[in-house]
Structure formats: C-alpha cells, structure tokens
C-alpha cells in the first residue's frame, strides 16, 4: 500500500471514504477505505475477513469424505472447481486413481461451472459499471437468465443449484441422468448464441469502451509478483493456464486455446473471459462427443466416516478455476482427516493486487476494476 502522505499533496482537502463492507459494488463484504482527492483515489486500505469461516481449521476436523461437500462453500460461485481441488489433493497424496469417465465428468462440470461463473461475473461487472437502474442491470439479468440454465443442468444432475458435493475422493458421486447430454447440448448452443448478444451490447459501444480501455492496468511483472492468476494473469500477457501447462483430470485430451491479451486493463480481462466462454463450450462439446462408458468412481460410495484414509504425505493440487488458480495444500498424517489444509483462493491473491493499481484512478474506476477482478468473498475470506 503506498503511503498516502508520501504522495504529492495538491492542496485540496482529502476525503476518507468507506467503500463497503455494505456497499452495492462490494461484491459481498469487501471494505476499501479510500482516500480521495476530489474524485481521485490517492490511497487504499483493503479490509477483508468479514466472511471468514475458518475453513482451514474446519478441514482439520472433518474427514476426507465429509469435507468435499463443504469445500464448495469456499468459492460458492464455482463450487465444482473448489471441490475438485480438495479431492485432487487427497488423491495425489494417496495416489488414488480416478476412472476415465469420472475425469471427463469432472472436466465437464468444471467447464459448465466456468460458464456459469463467467455469466455471473459479466452480469455483476456490468451492473457495477452500468447501474442497477440502467443498462447494467439489463445485461445482469440476461446473464443470470443464461446462468440459470446451467444451474438447471447441475440441479438435474446432483439435485442442488449452488453447493453440489459432486466430487468424492476417487471419483464423482453422481452419474449423468437420462437425457442430460441432450439437454446440455441445447443449453450450450443457446448460451453460445446469446454470447453474441452480450458482445453486441458491449463491444464497440463507446460507453463501455470508455469505461474499460486503459483502466486498471496490471503490468506483467506486478501480476506475477502478487500472484494473480486466471483471466487476470492472461489479460496481463502471461500465457499460464493450468489446464494447459499442468494438465489435470485429462485436460490434455481436449483441444482448446488459451486466450492471452497484452493490455492488462479491464478490457483485456473482459476479452479473455469472453474467449474462455467459447472455449469452455468447445471443451464441453468434445466431452459430450467422447464421454467414455465405465464406472464413475474407483472407490465404493461413501458408507462411513473412516472409509477414506490417506497415507502420510503432502500434496498441492491446483485447479484452473474460473477466477484462476484454486489450490489446496494438504498435509496428511495417515488418519481419515487432514493434518493441515491450506486453501489458496484465487480471489485472495487477485484481490491483493487492488492496493497496487487503485491509486490514481477515479472512484468510478474503482468499481470497474474491482468488478473486472471478479472476487468471490467466500474464497477470499475462506
């Protein structure tokens, strides 16, 4: 955080303004204590932790069979990828194999989740920029309309719309119901068509371009230094996608491109995510075409608490979630509960970049930048 007093003092009175924790664009419970000079931000103190639920302590008290259902509460907008990070860490320590069908299902869910999550991001971001009583709300409702379709798919698969409990150590808990693949194809086709509408409303639109181009530039060096990941990192010109660079769960079987933009501004992040939308749809189609038959789990379904025991060891499993690298660092002492779990939330690191880029922006840019970072506070505060 730059020292406010060290900045050059223009002679006007400074205003300290609290943005959050109760604020329409706080994306949950983020509190930014802004020091303003007129409308220009000169100092930022970011306060987080309002949603802290001791997930890391909780994980030490819950067995490997129990925690995946709660792991979904860390990043509740992309529950599938957070669950996957946890079970992958456990599988990596124990060298448990995962059947091919389960791996494909995990990828399928991960990509659907990415679509759902990006829908929410686009909607809320536009709402930040466009106002709840204006065009932003329109895009928000369009995005939510499409996101609901994806959640419908999840609901018919696992029975829940937000917190799935889909993964378990050694595989997945639910197989596809009848008619699901056809429904899925229909949904992604519809979403692909609607994506064009969002782009039509936003791209070339002078208002949107003015708000996003050149705003909140994150340099490549800063991006790596702070450890931001996902679309933000790729928007800053680094080609780093864990699905490509460290493939997990059979991602190497699928063809997709990793979008990279060099602008580092809000518009670059927007472009990256819009391409990711389409690439996710592409991966989903490939999976639906080539879904292998077979079991969905290498271990029998959960019957008791002590069923999954993981040998002594440590592992760090990282997953490319919609917001970036979701990591789970697991230390096992050989019992049915982890000895220590470190949750590396993508949003936590992504949000840590804000104090570096906000000074010098105007108040209106603060919300645009924060929206483009796409933080989910369940994951920041854990």
């Amino acid at each position, binding site marked *: 955080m730059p020292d406010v007093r060290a900045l050059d003092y223009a002679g006007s009175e400074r205003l300290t303004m609290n943005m959050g924790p109760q604020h329409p664009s706080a994306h949950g419970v983020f509190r930014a204590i802004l020091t303003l000079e007129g409308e220009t931000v000169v100092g930022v103190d970011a306060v987080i932790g309002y949603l802290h639920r001791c997930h890391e302590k909780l994980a030490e008290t*819950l067995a490997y*069979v*129990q*925690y995946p*259902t*709660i792991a979904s*509460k860390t990043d509740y907008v992309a529950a599938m990828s957070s669950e996957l990070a946890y079970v992958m860490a456990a599988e990596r320590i124990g060298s448990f194999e995962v*059947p091919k069908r389960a791996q494909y299902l995990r990828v399928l869910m991960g990509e659907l989740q990415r679509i759902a999550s990006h829908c929410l991001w686009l909607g809320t971001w536009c709402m930040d920029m466009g106002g709840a009583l204006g*065009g932003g709300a*329109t895009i928000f409702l*369009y995005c939510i*309309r499409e996101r*609901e379709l994806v959640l*419908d798919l999840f*609901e*018919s*698969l*696992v*029975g*829940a719309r937000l*917190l799935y*409990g889909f993964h*378990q150590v*050694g*595989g*997945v*808990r*639910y*197989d*596809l*119901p*009848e*008619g*699901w*693949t056809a429904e899925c194809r229909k949904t992604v086709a519809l979403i692909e068509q609607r994506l064009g*509408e969002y782009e*039509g*409303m*936003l*791209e*070339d*639109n*002078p208002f949107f371009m*003015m708000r996003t181009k050149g705003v909140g530039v994150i340099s490549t060096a800063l991006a790596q230094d702070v450890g931001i990941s996902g679309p933000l990192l790729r928007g800053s010109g680094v080609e780093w996608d864990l699905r490509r660079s460290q493939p997990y769960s059979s991602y190497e079987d699928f063809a997709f491109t990793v979008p990279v933009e060099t602008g580092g501004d809000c518009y670059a992040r927007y472009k990256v995510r819009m391409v990711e939308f389409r690439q996710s749809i592409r991966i989903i189609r490939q999976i639906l075409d080539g879904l292998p*038959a*077979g*079991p*969905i*789990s*290498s*271990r*029998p*379904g*959960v*019957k*008791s*608490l002590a069923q999954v025991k993981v040998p002594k060891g440590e592992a760090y499993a990282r997953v490319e979630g919609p917001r970036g690298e979701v990591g789970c660092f697991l230390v096992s002492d050989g019992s049915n509960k982890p000895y220590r779990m470190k949750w590396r939330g993508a949003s936590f690191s992504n949000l840590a970049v804000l104090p570096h880029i906000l000074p010098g922006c105007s108040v209106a840019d603060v919300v645009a930048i924060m929206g483009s970072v796409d933080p989910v506070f369940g994951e920041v505060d854990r």
Partner: protein
Amino acid sequence: MHDRKKGVLAEAWTIGKAVGQAMRITFINFFRKPVTVHYPTVSRPFPNRFRGLLALTYDKETGEENCIGCRLCEFICPPAVIKVEMLKGEKRNYAKFFSLELYACEFCELCVQVCPTDAIIMMKSFDMATADRREMLLDKDRLHAIGLQYEPSWATGNLLRDMQQPPKKESAKPDAGSGKPDAGSAPA
C-alpha cells in the same frame, strides 16, 4: 472519444451503429417470453434428483418405520445436525430418538447415501421458511410426517451407492453405475 485518425463523421457512424446495436438487442429481448416464474402460485418443476427437505420413510409392505437407529447418518453429517439414539429390539433395532436441525443442514445428501435401509430420504420441497426457528428442529414424528406429505426425490442410499460402485474385480457385472447413462428418471 474522438479518434483522430478517422473523420468525425466516420466516428459518429461507428458510435451510432454500436448504439443502435445495443438498443436493437434490448428490443429483441422485449419480445422474448419473460423467464419469470410466478413463484408461490406457479412452482418450477422439481428435477428428479432434487435435494430438498429430509424425511424418514416407512416400509411400503409392512408399514413399519425403516430406520434402525444405526447412527451412521449422525456420524457422517458434516455440520453434525443429526442426533440419533438406538432402541434395541428383538428382531430389529429402532431409532428411539431422531432429531434433525434443519436450520444448519447443508443438504449434501451424505446421510441419504450412507443409510443402509433407505430410511432417510430427501423430498421435492424447499419452501420451509418459518417465523420460528424451533420449527426447523425436526423430530422423528415430524420427519415421518414430511415423508408422507411431499413427493420423494429419486435418491436413496442403495441407489446412490449402486451408482458409485466401482467395477468388481474379475467379475464385472453390469449395474446401475456402469455402462450407459444412468436412469435418473426412474422413481425410487
């Protein structure tokens, strides 16, 4: 706003086109059917696997309660909302006491999955808002009553475990979990 390379007129034309485009899209959506569901009067159809209100079941043939008070669900429950006491019987055991704190339940379906007798299941219902928190503390009678009141979801312990069953070593017998996409539409 003003791009110096292009002329003012060309710039105005691009802006005008983009503005028209945005307004055209909202206009298209004006004629789409609203997606709103008039919730309390109309209810969205529940999917078959809906994870909703929990309930206890009776045996269809004998009319006896299915729960044997084995406490497996109590042990597995991540937020620890289930409390069971066992009552030893001659032929079989019963639950002497069964309570479920629905206000802390996270609907993960683990209790359903571990139940060896398919006694605890989930119902196709979610609207359980109440003004009194104590109403969400469900005892055995309430849970049985809920089981008769709503339509049950597809999942039961045995069905879920079958679905997740890995292939048996050597004798790979086809079961619900392997092979074709599983018949989720079959009611329990």
